[in-house]
């Protein structure tokens, strides 16, 4: 079943292919002179099964239709190509000046009907001009005297432009055409103009054919030599300079020495070749400047265009390449259009814009597209916006500027997963030696101990607790001050009393000592003297008697600005008293010691003011 289907499809396709190939065309000169006999051919590249001849208006059918069939078979590497040409030929003659028309001819090929386009043929009355060329070719009656004379009208070149007033950048089609009424053997040394002020594009060679054409009521054989599209690049009047062409024309002359032999051997009329230099007249083209008010994005594009933007496909990750494509298509001076400026984010790495074009040069201008690819590499992830792109052109048809825009492009660049972590550093610039050393090392390990969490943003400083503690300290201070102050005041009073008492106590003890001295009780005297001296010092210096020693008495006295000499004397008296207290030797010094003690204490009393 499947196989059957396949075969069916193949057959069908073969049929379709064949059917596609069928062409049915009419071939005819476009211009004829009155009375000229000419041929109209209908060619078909298939075997016809029926032919309906066309109707001719304004012509006499002299002969036809005549069928002719030609077939060729080509075998190349075993591939057989068969080509078949079927031709119906009519021989016609136009009798009235004006237009004759040929209606559609119809042919049937394998049940399918094909028709030609109806066409018209112009019949020109050349009036009294010499007889038509076939007559010339036929060797007519003109004598040798007319040799080598070719009138200016017989052969010339002409340049035509489709527009003579254009905007700057709008294409002008310039056609260089050769017209002749003489047979020609060839063309020599063509010198094309330099087209100053234009950007030129030669139209692709279309295998120009000789055509019959009516020019100034004369029928010429004409042929396009070359066609250009000219894009004016300057404003003002531009001139297409003359185009020079040298042709070799053939002039048929009848030999004066013509003999029977000549005729017999077919020498016929002689042909003389004449070189002729032809030149076109200059053509002026007025180039208008583009109107003012061009958009900021205008960059000289003239024509009709459309703009397509193609965003990069799929997800883009950082560090991978992507392409943003803009395509400008349409008709106009496409090759002169530069890549529109695209404002990519600054962190993108940009590369050269790749331009591809597919252009077709036709007679009406260049059409096709010009595509700009903007390759880029996003180095970092994130959301980016490529702003809208504006492209403007001038439309010469409406004489207005048109603005095209591609919408802003939002790009989501994903994080580069392949180079995460250590390798993500990529190019690290400006590293010092020390830093490179650090790169080689790893970070220190995490802490596994308790996280010691605390509520966020709660800091001790200026916190209520801090202020409370400060206040507490102040309160403590005030309390300590008041308590301490009172205590110290009391103590000072105490001490003051004692200090004042000291003298009294000492005096009382001195008196007692004096009594002992009178009684002669040596032991009692010294004991009382010592008690008076120590007691005085204790009270005066506010040091308990038990803590008193000679050293700290000396120090204390020193700090109270008592002269050293007096302190020494005091220490000496104490030492003498202690020594004498238990000494069996009676001493007569009791009186001296007593006096000295009293004297010293009175000095201290005046010195130590508390």
């Amino acid at each position, binding site marked *: 079943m499947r196989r059957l289907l396949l075969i069916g499809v193949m057959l069908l396709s073969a049929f379709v292919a064949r059917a596609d190939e069928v062409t049915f065309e009419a071939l005819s000169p476009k211009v004829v002179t009155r009375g000229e006999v000419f041929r109209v051919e209908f060619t078909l590249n298939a075997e016809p099964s029926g032919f309906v001849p066309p109707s001719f208006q304004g012509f006499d059918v002299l002969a036809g239709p005549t069928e002719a069939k030609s077939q060729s078979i080509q075998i190349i590497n075993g591939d057989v190509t068969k080509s078949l040409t079927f031709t119906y030929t009519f021989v016609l003659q136009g009798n009235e000046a004006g237009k004759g028309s040929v209606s559609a001819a119809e042919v049937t090929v394998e049940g399918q009907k094909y028709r030609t386009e109806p066409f018209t043929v112009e019949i020109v009355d050349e009036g009294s001009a010499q007889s038509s060329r076939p007559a010339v070719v036929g060797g007519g009656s003109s004598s040798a005297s007319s040799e080598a004379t070719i009138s200016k009208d017989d052969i010339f070149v002409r340049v035509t432009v489709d527009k003579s007033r254009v905007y700057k950048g709008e294409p002008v089609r310039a056609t260089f055409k050769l017209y002749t009424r003489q047979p020609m053997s060839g063309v020599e040394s063509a010198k094309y103009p330099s087209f100053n002020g234009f950007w030129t594009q030669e139209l692709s060679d279309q295998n120009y054919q000789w055509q019959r054409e009516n020019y100034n009521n004369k029928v010429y054989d004409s042929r396009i030599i070359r066609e250009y599209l000219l894009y004016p690049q300057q404003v003002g009047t531009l001139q297409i300079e003359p185009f020079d062409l040298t042709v070799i024309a053939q002039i048929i002359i009848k030999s004066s020495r013509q003999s029977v032999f000549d005729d017999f051997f077919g020498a016929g009329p002689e042909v003389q070749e004449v070189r002729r230099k032809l030149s076109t007249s200059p053509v002026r083209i007025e180039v208008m400047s583009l109107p003012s008010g061009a958009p900021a994005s205008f960059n000289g594009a003239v024509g009709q265009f459309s703009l397509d933007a193609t965003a990069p496909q799929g997800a883009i990750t950082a560090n991978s390449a992507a392409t943003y494509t803009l395509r400008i298509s349409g008709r106009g001076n496409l090759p002169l259009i530069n890549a529109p400026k695209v404002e990519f*984010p600054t962190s993108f790495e940009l590369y050269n814009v790749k331009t591809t074009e597919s252009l077709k040069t036709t007679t009406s201008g260049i059409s096709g597209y010009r595509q700009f690819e903007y390759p880029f590499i996003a180095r*970092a992830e994130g959301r980016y916006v490529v702003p809208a792109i504006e492209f403007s052109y001038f439309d010469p048809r409406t004489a207005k500027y048109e603005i095209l825009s591609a919408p802003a492009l939002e790009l989501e660049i994903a994080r580069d997963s392949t180079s995460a972590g250590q390798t993500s*550093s990529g190019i690290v610039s400006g590293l010092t030696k020390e830093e490179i050393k650090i*790169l080689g090392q790893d970070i220190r390990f995490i802490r596994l101990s308790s996280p*010691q969490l605390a509520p966020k943003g709660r800091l001790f400083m200026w916190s209520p607790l801090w202020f409370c503690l400060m206040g507490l300290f102040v309160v403590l201070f005030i309390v300590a001050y008041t308590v*301490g102050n009172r205590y110290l005041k009391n103590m000072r009073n105490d001490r003051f009393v004692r200090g004042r008492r000291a003298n009294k106590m000492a005096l009382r003890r001195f008196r007692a000592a004096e009594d002992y001295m009178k009684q002669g009780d040596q032991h009692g005297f010294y004991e009382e003297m010592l008690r008076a001296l120590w007691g005085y010092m204790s009270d005066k210096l506010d040091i308990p008697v038990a803590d008193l020693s000679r050293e700290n008495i000396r120090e204390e006295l020193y700090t109270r600005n008592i002269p050293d000499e007096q302190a020494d004397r005091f220490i000496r008296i104490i030492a003498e008293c202690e020594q004498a207290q238990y000494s069996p030797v009676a001493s007569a010094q009791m009186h001296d010691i007593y006096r000295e003690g009293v004297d010293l204490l009175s000095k201290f009393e005046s010195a130590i003011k508390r």
Partner: protein
Amino acid sequence: MKRILLLFLVIAPVVGLRAADLRALWDRANTAYVNENYPEAIACYDSIAVTGQESAILYYNMGNAYFKAGQIGKAILYYNRAQRLDPSDEDIAYNLTVAGSYAKDHIEPIPEFFLKRWVHDMRSSLSSNEWAVASLVLFAVFLAALLLYLLPLQRPLRKTGFWSGVVALLLFLMAAGFASTERREAIDASYAIVMSGAAPVKSSPDAASKDLFVLHEGTKVKLLDQLNGWREIQLADGKKGWIDTSSIEQID
């Protein structure tokens, strides 16, 4: 009032998460880190952080996890947060240096006046809380010295009290100043880290304005001014410009 309300809102879910739960999360995060499952570690640390609890150790571990996961910007952000809370920690400083070496921008800071640097070094030797405690202690010392001076004691004692009071007062002012400066830095987010891979810095708070320069992930910037969605920033080398708020994250 609003703040208290906010605090409540933040704390409300925390009440649900008891200390034991936090501890379990903490252990899970650390285990994930040890097992090199960094995304999970980050997720667990994050769920601790969203409870409103913080500590230098938590941020330090988060920074480590982000670093290992290859997110240098986040790592630097969390090391900075950790350093905020504990400026004297050596590990934080070390890891911050390592992570910083992976950041693309190397900005040469303007050399500071040596005295300023000393003061800064001294300030960052203790955290805000530690300085606050120090300030309290010094205040107590000052009051004691004042007491010594004010009470009717002997002249040398009072003299000692006076001078030590002056010294203690100066030290107290210094400690309180440091504590409050660090507190302000910790609460007011005056610094931020660039988070997006490449962020253009504009001459004005407007997307259409001119690009001055481009910053890359992990760069620390000082925040100055703000205007609908844009922040004015200053780099360590003194350059200024405006950056899109979405491409930076504040250290707070």
